[in-house]
């Protein structure tokens, strides 16, 4: 008899403190990870999930320390494998609320394959990818999201790698929920994570995160307070895509390509109306291509949110269907399911 059988327990009222473990947080002072941790710890009391049902799974990297700081169940696993480990957990325990915390190196380099497949299978996971465009824990090599030409210890003459756009990647991997937020705006961060958590299936959230030690200011071009209005393009479901202090800029689609244009010139009717629920991810993808990196106007918010059965439910349904059709498995019957014969007692 499992300790988990029996009537569900009431969900107690909690505060941020209840979700904070007794472990000393060991990120560098000023690291963007602090504000993401705070946002998650503030959000969880509002979600109505019992603490014992929450599991944080991470790989390796600065971001991967995250589970230690949460007073929940958690696994700090090995480099890149968190989506795979979390998949096994989520599929075998659909009752749990499983989160994956990964980084640009962990999730897009060594563990890229697992991330892609968790997304396409629509495993019920809330996946946070802290993108700081650098390897932090190994002290500053270029990552798969570093801009081409980046000079680091391992690329003294400039990186030759074309970077990934994580949102484009997730959309291409059949993700049903794709969003982007950043560590400088707690409200937006919490709102985005809340949406991700509500989503049934794999929810992918790219979080721009400042690594003040090895890549300080990587996002300043769009995130510093005076630049945000002109450089963050908020995606609002059902609304035309526009931005700027006076909302003077908008996004139009020409030949399937998204382009920024002055609203005064093209007219409001010409703007793309954002719809998260479009089955076809092409428009979301076009929006994700607006900026080649976080240096020019960049959309944030929910790019895509569509319904598709989550993987664990499909697995459970198949089992239930098999049991309905064939009855609960019977071991003695299984052993006799091949060709059998009797050998009698010899006289």
């Amino acid at each position, binding site marked *: *008899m*499992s*300790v*988990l059988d029996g009537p569900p*327990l009431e969900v107690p009222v909690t505060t941020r403190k209840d979700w904070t*473990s007794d*472990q000393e947080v060991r990120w560098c002072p000023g690291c963007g990870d602090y504000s993401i941790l705070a946002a998650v710890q503030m959000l969880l009391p509002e979600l109505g999930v*019992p*603490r*014992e049902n*929450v*599991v*944080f*799974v991470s790989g390796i990297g600065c971001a991967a320390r995250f*589970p*230690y700081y*949460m007073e*929940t*169940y*958690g*696994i*700090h*696993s*090995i480099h890149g*494998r968190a989506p*795979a*480990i*979390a*998949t*096994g*957990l989520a*599929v*075998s*325990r659909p*009752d*749990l609320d499983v989160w994956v915390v990964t980084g640009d190196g962990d999730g897009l380099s060594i563990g890229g*394959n*697992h991330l892609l*497949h968790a997304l396409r299978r629509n495993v019920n996971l809330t996946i946070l990818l802290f993108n700081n465009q650098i390897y932090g824990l190994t002290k500053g090599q270029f990552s798969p999201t570093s801009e081409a030409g980046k000079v680091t210890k391992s690329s003294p003459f400039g990186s030759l790698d074309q970077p990934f756009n994580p949102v484009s990647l997730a959309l291409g991997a059949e993700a049903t929920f794709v969003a982007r937020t950043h560590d400088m705006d707690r409200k937006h961060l919490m709102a985005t994570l809340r949406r991700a958590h509500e989503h049934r299936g794999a929810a992918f959230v790219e979080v721009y995160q400042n690594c003040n030690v090895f890549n300080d200011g990587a996002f300043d071009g769009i995130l510093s307070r005076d630049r945000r209005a002109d450089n963050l393009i908020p995606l609002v479901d059902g609304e035309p895509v526009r931005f700027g202090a006076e909302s003077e800029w908008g996004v139009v689609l020409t030949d399937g390509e998204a382009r920024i244009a002055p609203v005064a010139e093209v007219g409001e009717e010409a703007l793309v109306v954002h719809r998260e629920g479009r089955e076809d991810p092409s428009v979301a993808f076009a929006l994700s291509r607006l900026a080649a990196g976080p240096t020019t106007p960049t959309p944030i918010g929910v790019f895509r949110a569509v319904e598709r059965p989550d993987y664990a439910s499909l*697995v459970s349904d*198949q*089992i239930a269907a*098999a*049991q309905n059709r064939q*009855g*609960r*498995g019977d*071991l003695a019957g*299984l*052993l*006799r399911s*091949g*060709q*059998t*014969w*009797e*050998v*009698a*007692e*010899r006289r």
Partner: protein
Amino acid sequence: MGADGTHRLQVHAVEQVVVRLAGDSGDGMQLAGDRLMVSSARYGNAFATLPDFPAEIRAPAGTLAGVSAFQIQLADHPVRTPGDEADVLVAMNPAALRSQLRYLKPGATLIVDSDAFDERNLHKAGYADNPLADGELVGFSVLKVPMTSLTLAAVKETGARPREAERAKNFFALGLLSWLYGRPAAVTLEWIAERFAKVPQVAVVNRLAFQAGLAFGETAELVEATATVAPAPLPPGTYTTISGNTAMAWGLVAASELSGRPLFLGSYPITPASDLLHELSRLKRFGVRTFQAEDEIAGVGAALGAAFGGALGVTTTSGPGLDLKAETIGLAVSLELPLVVVDVQRAGPSTGMPTKPEQGDLLAALFGRHGEAPVPVLAPRGAAECFTMAIEAARLALTFRTPVIILSDGYLANSSEPWRLPDVADLAPIPVELASEANATAPDGRAVFHPYQRDAGTLARPWALPGTRGLEHRIGGLEKADETGDISYDGANHERMVHLRAAKVAGIAAAIPHAVVDDQEGARLLVVGWGSTAGAIAAAVEGLRRRGEHLAHLQLAHLNPFPANLGDVLRRYDRVVVAELNMGQLVSQLRATYLVDARLISKVQGVPFRVGELTEALLGELGSLAQSTGVPERVSTAGEVVA
């Protein structure tokens, strides 16, 4: 001589017979062999089989590379190997004949589809002249049967298209063999009717072809006598035929039932382990969750994640996959979670020979991880024992909270033997205790949960499943402080943890059976094997004893930890010889662990030991032991003694 000049088949009543069927991979030889096995089993014979198929799915038809063979030994007494050389070969084309001649006994009987010996096929097989005509087969009894045309004629009435009709010639061959050895035809006829119930046309074609083969035997008068292999005296009970892979899959299901832990399989297809994934994927009615992962790493990762959630997590693979899983197995060692890893070994290194067995992964299983990462290792000694070893692996994993590796191999996986079914009620339950409450007191007096507070007996840590209120905890691959499980970089603590993990695995020796020797009065030589070589070694030992030699045999199934009495056992004999299908992996461990001067009989040809070559090698050892005065030489390859 027959009327057409061919030899008449001379067959006598025999204690055992070894039959080999060979044809193109598309010819259905595995199926025909399988049916011969089942009808023989039902007839009451003891048997053992060896499928031998190419790695390519469909190599070009008619070529040597595309030959697929199946060997079966039928006997009136228990047998443990498919036999060394065949008494009878059924060859469906020239390539099959040419590639298989070396597996035959002198004077063996060849039954060939003479229709297939046309110029094109002869050329593809590399024959300049027709071997059926040019005397190349002198010394064999050759039975030329136009199987293709006889099959076509037999099924003509059904209006089946020629290609479809031709495909049934394996059933013609099966019919002929069934007549030859007096196999019960009803068993096969019933099976055809059942198997092809949904495609009546195919059922009729196969039935007619089978009956034509039977009738041909009876009426063609090409043979003077049929063979009789009497039923074997098996212990009473209900029997089934079982292959190692099926037995392993069923054992895993049984372990799940016995422990009450749901079974989760994370796996990536790989030869020869894929059938484990296939079989378990069918067993959803047992609540089995199978996950075909994106790669080997994800397969084991998902299994470990499921184990964190309380499942019996299992991953299945073969050599290359074991390499890829190494890091995650190390994580499981550190997390101290139950995990079963099945490695169906194949010839390596690298891709090696995917369909060919080898015992090359023992050291990888024991040591193939960085750091001090001990893992229990088990090796089933027969197809049926895969069932009990799967349960044993789960028992150890669940009890001691550790990954356990099972080393099967391509031979065990695919070979079949009769299995007396156990009574399910006799299978011992696997008790699993889950943590349900705090187990320690914090300095401030609060009751807290320490995930690395160990059980004093097993040294296992508590298993607290997510969903259990109050036991929230974090674990990871970083070194943990003893008891609390907090991250710790303290050197003294690390050393303590390394020793604790080692002591936990070593302590399993108290929970496994002692090594039991098949001993003999006066034996000075002990031959040691492990895993799948059990049958061949036992047969060689029995044969030598019948010749008046004295020797003892020990077949190990527990390779880490070794049985507690192993050192004493080894020291009882003047000479210890280890026979294994590798370059000496077990022997190195026995020498290192027990300081015994164990010697080696090695073979790495991608095929199991033959009884004959083992007999020769052991005779050499016995001879040199009889004369030995000083330091003996080491044996390197089967039968060949080098300094």
